[in-house]
Each structure stands twice: as C-alpha cells, then as structure tokens.
C-alpha cells in the first residue's frame, strides 16, 4: 500500500527530558490508523510536530512521498493536514453553516456575506459524508455528536487529505460514536482521506480502525493491524499490555462485599424533561451503576440527588430520614458527595494549587480559631496524595500541571477527605488512561468496602461490568430495567438503553 505519511527517526527533548526517541510512524493511504498510549506517552507531541505546532530536534517527515517541513499549522493545512480537536471548537450561537465557514467566509461585493452559496456548499459537504443536518439550525440545538461531525466536515471543506483526530469520541456515547465512525469510514472509503485517530478507548480502536501504533514513554512499541489474519479482532487486553507494559484489562478489580442496610432511598424522583419518576434503593457498601445513552437522564438523576438541579416531585430518604437538598452545599452537609462529569468545567479550580483543590471541601477543618493552619492542610493533602498514588512533584503546583488521571484522583481525594456516606461518581474515568483507570476502580472498591454507598453513572458498559454490583439502565428519563451483576452483558444493556425490553 502507498504511504500517506512516513515520519522517521523523530526525536524531541523538552528541557533535557526525552519525549520522543527515534520514533518511526508510517500511515497507509486511506486507512484509519489509531495512535494510542497513556497520557504522557508522546502522542500529542508527535502530532504537534507533524502539524508544525512545535519543532522537532531530529528526523524526517514525508507526506505522500514528498519531503515536508511545516513551521506553522497554516502551512500544514495548506498541504492537506487538518486537526480535529478533542475540545469542540464550535460556536454555539452560530448556525451550522456559519460554524463551517468561520474564518473562511465566502464574500461577495463590498464584503457582503454570500450566505446562499455557503449554505449550498454546506449541504453538499454533508451529502458527501452522508449526514443529514439543517445548515441553518443553531449549533446550540444540536446533539454533541453533530458538533463533532461539524468539526469533521470542516476538514472536508478544506479538502484535507490527512485528518488527525485527537480523542474525538471522549464525550460521546456508544451510539453516537458509531455515527462519527460511519462518517469517518465514508471519508476514507469514498474520498480516499487518511485518518489518524488518537484515543484511549480500545474498543473503538479494534472495532473501527484498520491499524494501530502504540507509543510508550516516547518510543514506538509496535504497529499492528487491528484484525488478525483470520479476521478476528485483536484482544484489547494485549493492546493495553503494550500500552502500559503490564496486564491491566484482565486484572480483576471487583471484590465481593457484604451489603449493609438501605442507605439512600429514592422514590418517584422527577426532574421535568430529564428524569421521570425514578425509584431505587442504595445500600451501604453497594456500588450501583446507572447507564443510558447521552441525554437520557443519568447525569440529571445524580445532579438532582446532589441538589445541583431541583426535582419537582418525589422524595429521598438518607439513613431513614427525609432529606431535600436545595443546593450542593446542603447535600454535602447531609453526607453526599459528587464527582461531576466534565472535569475541566465542573471540578477543576485552575487557580488553586493541587493541595488547595484537595482541601477546598473540608477547609474549615484546618483552622485554629479563624486562622487556616497550612501545615495541617498540607499534612492531609500529603496523606491522600500517597493513599491515591497521585503523581505530583509538589503539592503547591497548580492543578493544571497534572495529567487527566491524576487530576481526577485529586477531585476524588477532595471528597474522600470529607468522608461522605453516599458518593456519586459521574463518568469517573472520563479522559483517564488505562493504567489510572484501574487505580480509580481500586479506590472505589476500597471505599465500598468501608461501607460507603456509591452510585456510578457511566456510558461505558465495560466499566459498569468491571465494578458495579447492580446496574440501572435509563431510557428517555425512565428506568428501563435493572440488571444484577450476574446478568451484565453489553447486549442486554444495549437493548434496554435503546428502549427495548428483556424477556
């Protein structure tokens, strides 16, 4: 097969620390090539070098057989390399076509916008990738999946020959992921586009990609087809082992526990438009999963319990006593904690240090009189840093300097210090790499073992299967079904979450 891209002997050092060591990375024309590795393995650095964002120390880049040298992203784009970023760069208050042409608007006389032509070309582009979207609708009103597709459509607009996608599916559910991949397949098969796909989700890699390359600590561990010669998908556990250097996926994290009394009892909880009269009990020491497709109400259910949004009817009892938290501060006083979804917006206080983020919930505990005793604060932070194995040189560093997995552990730590009875974990391993995932699962197990009641909302069936005792599946705000640990299967979860029933 002809090569779309051949990077050879790429070496990069940051402040004396080697980040990429003699990396050879070759991508065949028209394939979807996954680039995987843990946080810090060098994926983004490699792609930034390709895109002209940062210079390399050594090595050569060939694009479609031609030696290239990019100094700016614009030069790379001119040669047909487009970036689709993890964070959606769409503007909610503009329409679909306005977003598509943002910065490259078609203009007529006197700089007047040629709207008709832009709309026509938008329709054309979406037809080419076989997606139906009204070009004049506000992006705000679209589902997340379409926002991602607009980003992909931009690369079609620029006639990109090589598209680099940096974790485009992080915030999407199974069904939506399939949508995005359908568009990607269409691009490669119908239009000869080559795609480099950066991801943490191994399931997507083996299902949808043709080839994968694993980076670990700045070195290429291997490049392989995702299907064996017999046409069977490569075992995800093998890929994970290549990434981390040891077995992670098959490691059993689940531990049998004795369940205690009913801790939290939710009856007919109703949040208009999101949660439709849902009832369930949570026991001490239980890990209860809640799943469903994006927008089917699992986040809202957790947020209503935490007082972040108000429920209009229904009741909650905690330890047999009726509670009605009107805001998160009230829920916290009752002994409920929540690790919210979307860490960056909802959990990270970027101007505080790592220690400051860890102690924000329990700050009054470190006082003597009115005065904060920083040594006391630091002592607690150090204790939890060790307990959760948070990798940080200095607890006085700003939280932004940590990797996703370590940031998530800090957010978890701030609640563990507060010792809540009920802990709500929304997408707890969002944007966390495979190694850190297991550590988080182990922490969750340990907490349940100590008698905490834990609710995990997750879009990943595999995650639910690894840690939950029981799983509630929601569909359009309703409780569609309940599965015991013995009956977990991706199939039954999919049936329930798409509105079906189990016999």
């Amino acid at each position, binding site marked *: 097969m002809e090569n779309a891209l051949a990077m050879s002997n790429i070496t990069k050092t*940051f*402040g004396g*620390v080697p*980040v990429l060591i003699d990396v050879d990375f070759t991508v065949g024309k028209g394939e979807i090539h996954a680039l995987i590795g843990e*946080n*810090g393995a*060098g*994926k*983004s*650095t490699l792609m*930034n070098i390709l895109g002209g964002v*940062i210079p390399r120390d050594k090595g050569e880049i060939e694009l479609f057989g031609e030696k290239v040298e990019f100094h700016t992203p614009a030069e790379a784009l001119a040669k047909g390399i487009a970036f689709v970023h993890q964070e959606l760069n769409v503007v909610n208050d503009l329409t679909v076509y306005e977003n598509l042409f943002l910065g490259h608007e078609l203009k007529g006389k006197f700089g007047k916008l040629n709207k008709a032509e832009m709309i026509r070309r938008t329709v054309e582009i979406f037809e080419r990738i076989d997606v139906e979207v009204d070009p004049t609708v506000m992006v705000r009103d679209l589902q997340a999946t379409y926002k991602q597709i607009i980003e992909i459509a931009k690369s079609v607009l620029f006639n990109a020959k090589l598209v680099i996608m940096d974790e485009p599916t992080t915030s999407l559910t199974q069904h939506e992921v399939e949508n995005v991949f359908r568009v990607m397949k269409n691009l490669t098969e119908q239009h000869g586009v080559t795609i480099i796909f950066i991801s943490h989700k191994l399931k997507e890699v083996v299902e949808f990609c043709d080839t994968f390359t694993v980076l670990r600590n700045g070195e290429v561990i291997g490049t392989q087809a995702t299907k064996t010669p017999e046409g069977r998908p490569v075992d995800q556990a093998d890929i994970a082992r290549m990434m981390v250097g040891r077995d992670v996926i098959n490691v059993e994290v689940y531990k049998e526990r004795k369940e205690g009394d009913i801790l939290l009892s939710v009856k007919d909880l109703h949040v208009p438009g999101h949660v439709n009269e849902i009832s369930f009990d949570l026991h001490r020491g239980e890990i209860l999963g809640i799943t469903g497709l994006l927008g089917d109400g699992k986040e809202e259910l957790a947020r209503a319990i*935490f007082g*972040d949004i108000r429920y209009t009817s229904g009741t909650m009892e905690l330890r047999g006593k009726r509670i009605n938290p009107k*805001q*998160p*501060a009230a*829920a*916290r*006083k009752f002994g409920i*904690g*929540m690790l*919210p979804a979307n860490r960056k*917006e*909802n*959990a*990270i*206080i*970027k*101007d*505080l240090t790592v220690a*400051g983020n860890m102690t*924000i*919930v329990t*700050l*009054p505990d470190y*006082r003597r009189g*009115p*005065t*904060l005793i*920083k040594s006391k604060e630091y002592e607690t932070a150090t204790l939890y840093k060790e307990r959760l194995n948070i990798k940080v040189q200095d607890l006085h560093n700003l939280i932004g*300097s*940590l*990797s996703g997995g370590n940031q998530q552990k800090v957010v978890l730590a*701030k609640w563990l210090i*507060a010792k809540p009875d009920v802990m709500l974990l929304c997408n707890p391993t969002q944007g966390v790499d495979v190694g850190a995932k297991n550590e988080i699962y182990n922490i969750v197990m340990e907490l349940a073992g100590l008698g905490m009641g834990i609710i995990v909302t997750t879009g990943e069936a595999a995650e639910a299967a690894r840690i939950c005792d029981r799983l509630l599946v929601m569909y359009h705000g309703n409780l569609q079904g309940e599965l015991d640990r013995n009956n977990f299967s991706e199939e039954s979860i999919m049936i329930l979450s798409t509105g079906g029933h189990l016999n």
Partner: protein
Amino acid sequence: MGTTSSAARTPSAFSRFAHEYMIVLITIGVFVCATIACTIKFGEPTHFLNIQNMVNILRASSVMGIIALGMAFVIISGNIDLSVGAQMVFVGIASFNVINGLEPSIGPYAAIAVGIVVAMVMSVALSMFCGFIVTKGVVPSFIITLGLSYIYRSLSIFELQSGGINISTKVFQKISNTNLGIVPMPVIYFFIVFAVYLYISRYTVLGRRIFAVGSNAQATRLSGINTDMIKIQAFALLGLTVAIAAVVEGSRMNSMNSSSSGLGYDLNTIAMAVVGGIAMEGGKGNFVNVLFGIIILGMINNVLTIMGMDVYLVNAVKGGIIIAAVLLLRSRGKLN
C-alpha cells in the same frame, strides 16, 4: 499535554525573577522616572525625592487605597463594583447626620462612635444587598452597581440639595488630621486595613473560597460550597472599606459634598487593583501586589502635580501609564 507545557515551565532565571517581582520592577521604574523627570524640570530631584513627599503620596492614596483593598476581593470573586464613590458619599452623609444630631445630647465622643457604627453597618448592608441582587438575580454586577451608583448619588444630592454637610464637632476632624510621628493617621488606617485584608486573603477559609469562586464558580459550587454566600461576603468586605473611607475622608475634609465627593473613586480604585495584578476575570491576585498598585498610582498622581502638569492633561498621562503597566503584567502572564 504535560510534555509540551513543561518546556514553557522552565524559563530563565531572569524571566523567573521578573515574573515574581514584575510589579516591584514597575514600581521602581515609575519611581526612577519620576525622580529623573523632576531633576530635568527643576535641576534637582528633591521636589519629588524627599521624606515628606513620600508621606504625602501615601496620605493622598490612603482613602482610595482602603477602598481598593475591598475592591480587590470583589474582583477576585468575579464581580465588579462601580458604585463605591457614590456609596461612600451616601453612607457618609447618613453617618454625619447621625453625629450632628446626637452630639448635643450624648456628647461628641459617643456621637462619633455611634456615627461610625452606623456608617459601617449601613455600608456593609448596602453592599450585601447589592451582592444579593447580583447573585440571586444572576445579573452582571457591572449593570447593578452602575444603577446603584446613580441611585446613591441622586439621593445624596437630593438630600443636601447638591450642597455639602459639615460635622459640627471639632473632635471629628482629629480622626484624620493628626499624625503619629510624621505619619498621618489615614496612612495608619490604610496599613491596618491592608494587614487585615492580607490576612483574610491568605489565612482564612473565606479568603481561599473567594479565590476559588472567582476561578471556577461551578466547580466551587459542586464542591458543596454556597458560592452565592461567598460572593455576598466579598461585597461585604468591600462595603466595610467604603464605610472606613467615608469616615476618614469626611474627617480629613471636615465635610462631605453630595455632588463632588467621591467622584472617580470607582474607576480609580479598580485601576489600583488591576495595576496591582488583580485579574479582571477573577480568581487571581495577591494583596501585596495591590499595595504596589496603590503606590504606583499615588506616585503618578503626585509627580504630575509637582511637575505642574496641566490639570486637563493629567488623566491622559495617567491612563497611558495604567495601560502600559497592565500590558507589562500581562506579558508576565503569558510567560506562565
């Protein structure tokens, strides 16, 4: 990714020094420029460079400086207050009316004590009310405080029919018009407020949470913290400084004028905080740097007056220097 940012986090020793102490460098720069300018103009620097003038700079900056310390908390919490000048006059007039009214019956000292308490309670209550509307109404503080400033100013002018109010007892003047050694009392008051607010910003739960709210209100709320209450308390800290400023200013002038007192205090105090490195987007800042911001603006005002610059031009120069100072601080931010 961590790897790319780590390169940016290893700047040279000088840029790291400049990063830490940029505000000090700017202060020294303004000081040196002022000295040189005076030397060129008068042939010798002592018009600017003498102890008494340094004391004058501090005294002239003290009233607005006190308010700037409160303003810093409000800006850090993610809000702004454009009503502090009008609120100072409004609160001052009420307080002085109380003092004038009570003095014949309970004597000057008791009357002044009651008057000061009235100023503080009233000012803190007004600011908290303002914070309440801003948080519960989910409206920008810019708009609310702009409206409030019109209300306070108008009510003050109406009450005094655009005139001023004098305080009948001579005792009241002593609050601001006495010295401790060569240091005027307003400077002492300023440093007391500075010490207390520095302490609050660094060593209290409230201080830390004001920074947290300004940095990411949603994440702070989801940490089980009543963020509305934090913002309202930040306003209360500003209200307290406005009351202190009203008393110090009223005593120094022995009067409060409904139409001319406190004019321009809003933007001047915001400028002091911002030149002192308080970020308008909230969540960032350091009170020691605010002290430098206050001194920088004080020196600029002082030297332009000494040089006899045309009153009508003073603000143009001041504006230019403010912009230059903030740009320098920004370049420091980029380094980070």
